[in-house]
């Protein structure tokens, strides 16, 4: 069973936010997350990992690679999580905490 | 729609051990298997995880039938389906060798109680299995389909894999 994560703030930002646990790691699905301006695509599904995985304390995955103002190192591609394929850029040292703040820290990379 | 039912050898052995225990009055024992589901390119997978045995006092003494389970049994299985978001499969044993099949009472009764699981989990497949000493057969009530499907393949995972029932 998923551990208790308060999804209220995430759900207000992105309706339909839902928590999943896979092999002991906690994820929040963010359907149709709106990204900062200048990103392409502007809206897409994202997956916030709130557990330490692959050397990152938390990580934000996207349904596809996103182009943005900043050049980012997309060092995770076609990562299989929850039976879907995800992509992520390297943006480290975002500690786990209040989910909305974790998300905001990760999205800073796209601003 | 092709349905493939998979179970680990360890879980299956545990089910056999339970179903072979004698009961004070029931000729046959039964249980429920909590499963998860997945689609695949050529159909659907039903993946067994948890076996719910029926305690002795969850059987009803009815000499007309080999096994009649009580409302407690159904309630527990429904609760498991709801809590674990699980597909439920009833299972019992015809302990002889060869390919088993359901008796007429089996077919009649399962067509009544299996669809009841859609009251708690309407989007999931549910069904029933019958085991023999060296085989298995099953029926699956798949969402949005009124009549049950014969399970095409039942596989016990282990070394070696046991292909217990392959329907043509």
């Amino acid at each position, binding site marked *: *069973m998923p551990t208790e994560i308060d999804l209220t703030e995430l759900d207000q930002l992105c309706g339909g936010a839902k928590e*999943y*646990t*896979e*092999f*002991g790691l906690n994820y929040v699905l963010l359907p149709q997350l709106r990204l900062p301006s200048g990103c392409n695509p502007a809206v897409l599904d994202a997956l916030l990992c709130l557990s330490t*995985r*692959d*050397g*990152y304390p938390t990580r934000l995955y996207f349904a596809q690679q996103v182009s943005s103002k900043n050049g980012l*190192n997309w*060092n*995770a591609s*076609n*990562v*299989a999580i*929850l*039976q*879907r*394929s995800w992509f992520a850029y*390297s943006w*480290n040292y975002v500690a786990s905490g209040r989910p909305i703040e974790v998300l905001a820290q990760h999205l800073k990379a796209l601003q | 729609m092709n349905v493939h039912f*998979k179970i*680990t*050898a*360890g*879980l299956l052995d545990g089910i056999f051990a339970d179903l072979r225990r004698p009961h004070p009055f029931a000729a046959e024992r039964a249980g429920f298997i*909590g*499963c*998860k*589901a*997945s*689609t*695949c*390119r*050529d*159909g*659907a*997978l039903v*993946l067994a*995880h*948890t076996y719910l045995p029926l305690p002795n006092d969850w059987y009803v003494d009815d000499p007309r039938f080999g096994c009649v389970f009580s409302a407690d049994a159904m309630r527990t299985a429904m609760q498991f389906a709801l809590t*674990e978001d*699980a597909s439920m499969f009833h299972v019992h044993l015809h302990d002889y060798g060869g390919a088993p099949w359901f008796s007429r009472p089996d077919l009649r009764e399962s067509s009544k109680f299996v669809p009841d699981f859609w009251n708690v989990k309407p*989007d*999931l*497949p549910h069904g029933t299995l019958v085991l023999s000493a060296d085989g298995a057969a099953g029926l699956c009530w*798949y*969402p*949005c389909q009124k009549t049950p499907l014969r399970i095409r393949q039942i*596989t016990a*995972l*282990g*070394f*070696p*894999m046991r*292909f217990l029932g*392959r329907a043509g």
Partner: protein
Amino acid sequence: MSDLFSRQSFLGKDSEKLLRETRVGIVGLGGGRTLKKQQSAHVGVGRFAIFDPDNTDFPNLNRTVGATFEDAVSKTPKVVVAQRMIMGINPQAEVWPIQSEWQSDFPALRACDVVFGCIDGFSGRAQLEESCRRAMIPLIDIGMDVHKGDPYSISGQVVVSMPGRPCFRCMGFIRQRDLDDEGRRYGEAGGNPQVVWSNGVLASTAVGLFVQMVTPWCRIHPGSAFVGYDGDRFTLEHDARLTVTGKTQCGHFSGIGDLGDPFWKP
């Protein structure tokens, strides 16, 4: 039993049918994987799902069994080479050639009865194992390394992840620190050395384990397998990591939520 497989009738009276009806997934078609598809076709496997996004080229021609010089010139997709080889051995085989990463086609992977994995890196292996465990598919992983040094040395392994039995993590084959190191890496620095003969030993071992898994011929039932290969001394031995754990069940893939499709729709 047909004449075609009369010399392997010892595998069991129904073995021809069992192998013909089994669908094998082969993830990655370089090196040892090409031998696995070849040998699987020869023993009578009738259904294949083959996953590889890459093309044949000169750097991989030294070990891509079935590929020709012309394939390297024209950069024939590896799945096309594989399909051609399989159909040449068994024209009745059903082959799904998937020219992409396996993560692009979960339904095809899930339709497999057994998967052979030959993926570089621990993270890729971990993901493939997770997906196979979700669909309750036995995974046979093979890997080979040429270790740089003076002198060089060759080693490898074949590891079986059987649902309900110890997984790669249980066996110590995949460790968290390896996953963390890989996750932080900023890209590969060129191709690793690879040679066909040690791939051949490992691929044949993997196919042997597969046949032992699917047919009833052998009385030895290992449950799991972790076979280590010393490519300098040409020895295969059971890796101590499997026996040292003493485990018979998996502690990592044990919850009901670890099965099936979390986004299930009928």
